[in-house]
């Protein structure tokens, strides 16, 4: 890649952060060049977040219909699965799996709730907060594009 060909695409990903690419200058020497972004990377990153969002939306639906506990939402929001959450909570996976059931989660004691809240960096009573699907999950940078999911 030549220095002048280093892509400087305006993308959602980089929000001003530039990253280093290696390219050849006019004299044929390799130099580090800052790049603002490249469209194909953005496509791939977008795609990954879209899968995550769809996953969260379907989780919220299940929570609203009483099948899953709010813990499932926070787990997915933090990009975790049962084994990763179990590792953070220092609990066996089968227990975390049970806590994802609405009826069992309701009976959890304060100590366990604190432990979960601590992992997600929120207060224990915030565990009950499940956003409306239309509100969007990540208020800072990533917004729901999937409007039909309402």
């Amino acid at each position, binding site marked *: 890649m030549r220095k002048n060909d280093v892509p400087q695409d305006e993308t959602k990903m980089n929000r001003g952060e530039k990253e280093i*690419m*290696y390219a050849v200058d006019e004299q044929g020497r390799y130099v580090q060049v800052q790049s603002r972004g490249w469209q194909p*990377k953005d*496509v*791939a990153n977008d795609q990954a977040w879209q899968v995550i969002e769809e996953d969260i939306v379907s989780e919220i639906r299940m929570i609203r219909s009483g099948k899953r506990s709010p813990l499932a939402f926070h787990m997915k929001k933090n*990009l975790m699965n049962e084994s990763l959450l179990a*590792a953070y909570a220092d609990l066996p996976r089968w227990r975390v799996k049970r806590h994802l059931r609405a009826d069992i989660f309701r009976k959890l004691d304060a100590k366990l709730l604190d432990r979960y809240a601590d992992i997600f960096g929120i207060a224990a009573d915030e565990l009950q907060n499940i956003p409306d699907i239309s509100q969007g999950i990540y208020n800072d*940078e990533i917004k729901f594009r999937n409007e039909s999911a309402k």
Partner: protein
Amino acid sequence: MNIRIPFVHQQSAHCETGVMSNLLSHYGVPASESLVFGIGSGLFFGYFPFIRLNHLPLTAFRISTGGIMSRTAKRLKIGIRGEKFRSPEKAMDALDRKLEQQIPVGCRTGAYWLSYFPRRYRFHFNMHNLVVFGKEDDEYIISDPVFEEPVRCSRASLMKARFARGPLPPKGRMYYVHRVPEQPDFSGAVHKGMKEVCRTMLRAPGPFLGIKGIRYLARKMETWPEKLGEEKAALYLGQLIRMQEEIGTGGAGFRFIYAAFLQESAAIREDGRLQDLSETFTRVGDRWREFALLASRICKKRVPAAEGYPDMSAILRICADEEEKVLRDLAEVLKSNPVNKKELNVK
């Protein structure tokens, strides 16, 4: 306690090589990122359909975490001391003590809990590296090589990142340079680094690694749309682009960094043939970029799958052929310019 070690933060493409390059420079060993990458034999390819990352097969363009650093240290005879911890509090105290002794400390962390990371890059990825070189009140001053400027991170969030869980947990790992040779033997180190890359890329056993791995992926890719359906196949592609371009590779899955390394080696080993190989390898990198571009167009459904996937396989096969040729030539160059003869000249 307020400390700020005079540490020069130089932005780089990749975290592990950037940390190593910055640490070495701090101790007066000028080693660029690409030189570290080459000496540490970072160049690699592996396609592991049986290892899943977010339910998608894993593709690797560099050797395993920590490998580049340990090989560079070994080959340049740099003394690096590492520590692992059970207790997060103790790990942070140990870090503070090193800072008090004016020693910049490298840490392995997860990316997810680092508060300064943009949300879009925050995944549970436990192979991130950074250098802590200062502390102000509750905040650490950090040289994270993939960022333009030094960044700051709270104690709580750095502690969480150092004790991220999941695959390959960092377990509070930290490391620092404790011994540096007066005259590091770059020429010998470069030679060893190249030799190992030739070996793993050309002669690793099994179908998944090296050049054979690229061809294996090319073969499998042709069957994706039919076997997985177009939706899932597009996810496989997306993951591949991300491994190649997103995780700080300097472009083309580290191929451009390696070409830069070959160019530097030409000067270090006084061998013009390495410069030629660098130019050829740049073109290999360009092919990989074409590959990513086409893949993203398929993901966006701008190219029909029926044509797209065979085209992609074809590009991959060209990548494999060209990469193989460069590495075979490189192996020849290494044979005809052995390291011992050079050392005799120096001494």
